[in-house]
């Protein structure tokens, strides 16, 4: 696949980055991939979310690599510039990352937004959009409450 201009494909890039490090037996790679101690059977993990786990995304491709490759191609296609700029897509991704509350995605798209030339003012507005839609979605379900109550109330 052609190298894209986009700096806003964090997951895809992470895949490439980890692959490069493994190919070259890189100490940086070792630092990120090998030194991370994975909890053994019966051991408790210290945290559910480890920052370095984002770098391990390609491990998902160990099983059903065909599906992983399909996903990555789709992902790269989606995140490349089209009718929307990479900057706009990074801000949408950042908002969605907050809506789904994914720490990896927040990490990746904070960087992705900055690398697309965005700034904290725009990024904060994007987060407010996510918050507004989540809040509105909660409230609009109040109509369900009204409907349900009307159904069982004399």
């Amino acid at each position, binding site marked *: 696949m052609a190298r894209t201009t986009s*700096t806003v494909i964090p997951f895809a890039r992470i895949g490439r980055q980890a692959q490069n490090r493994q190919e070259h037996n890189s100490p940086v790679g070792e630092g990120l991939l090998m030194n991370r101690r994975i909890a053994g059977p019966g051991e408790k993990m210290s945290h559910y979310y480890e920052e370095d786990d984002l770098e391990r995304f390609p491990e998902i491709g160990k099983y059903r690599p065909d599906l992983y490759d399909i996903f990555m191609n789709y992902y790269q296609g989606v995140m490349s510039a089209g009718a929307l700029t990479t900057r706009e897509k990074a801000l949408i991704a950042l908002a969605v990352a907050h809506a789904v509350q994914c720490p990896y995605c927040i990490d990746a798209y904070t960087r992705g937004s900055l690398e697309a030339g965005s700034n904290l003012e725009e990024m904060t507005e994007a987060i407010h959009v996510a918050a507004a839609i989540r809040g509105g979605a909660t409230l609009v379900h109040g109509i369900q409450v009204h409907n349900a109550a009307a159904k069982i109330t004399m």
Partner: protein
Amino acid sequence: MLPFARKLEDLGYPDLKADRINILQVNLGWRCNQACKHCHLLAGPQRPEQMARDTIEEIIRVVKRWSIPTVDLTGGAPELNPHYEYLVERLDQLGTHILTRCNLTILLEPGKEHLPEFFRDHRVELVCSLPYYQEDLVDRLRGAGVFQKSLDALRRLNRVGYGEADPDLKLNLMYNPAGAYLPPEEAALEAVYRRELAERHQIRFHRLLTLLNMPIGRFKEFLERSKNYERYMGKLVSGFNPATVAGLMCRSLISVAWDGRLFDCDFNQALDLPLLPGLPQTIREFDPEALATRPIRLGDHCYGCTAGLGSSCGGKLAEG
């Protein structure tokens, strides 16, 4: 990390060589009226390093003798060198294309207010640092009040004709990231800069160039302090783009330090990595035969020039 030289070797460049000398980049000294967090030279108001008059004369001699088409003046703040204007006048007489890397705030320093007209009279192309179009980020990187002063300086340059239709009065801006991440795509960011600076500040410019922060100098200190160094280097290495190699600036430029020593680029100068042994080492020994096709001295910081779309004093090196 695979050493940069090995990486190039694997790609069929066993020894990267220059292929011409189109640009003589002259570092007039490390003194600067600013002390920016991203400076690779640790420049600042207290730095004593300044190019002396006899070295300036050597520069003029070399440019004249070998008809070097472009001289790129940098620093520190190059305008703080007491011989800066003399050098520009002499180069202009020779018909040399002169470029100055200007930090903008220098134009407001006492005794430097005439510089916009001086630049205009000698058709100096300007590359001015403006790492973002918003105040908080610029002031965080370059010091309190720098953004407003920079706008003031840009307005002065616009008033004397820079950034306008005259193609000889080029006013280019230089972006660099405010942290441990890569620069955005140049054309997309240029459009945003153009809109923001025009609408909010009525400022015009020609081109926006993007420059990656080299993992050296003050920026390296930041990377280490914030524990971002390994990850940043990993990003540069994994972002290696073979399409950038042909246009690397060291292949068409030679850098002269304030003390007259020769380097492959300003970054090697910052790291005190002179030209490879056996080559002329100072401007006094300048020999285009030996230097135009010289092998380049490489280091792992060179990954900074080849990551993504590439990075150079002239902006990106490859198309997306």
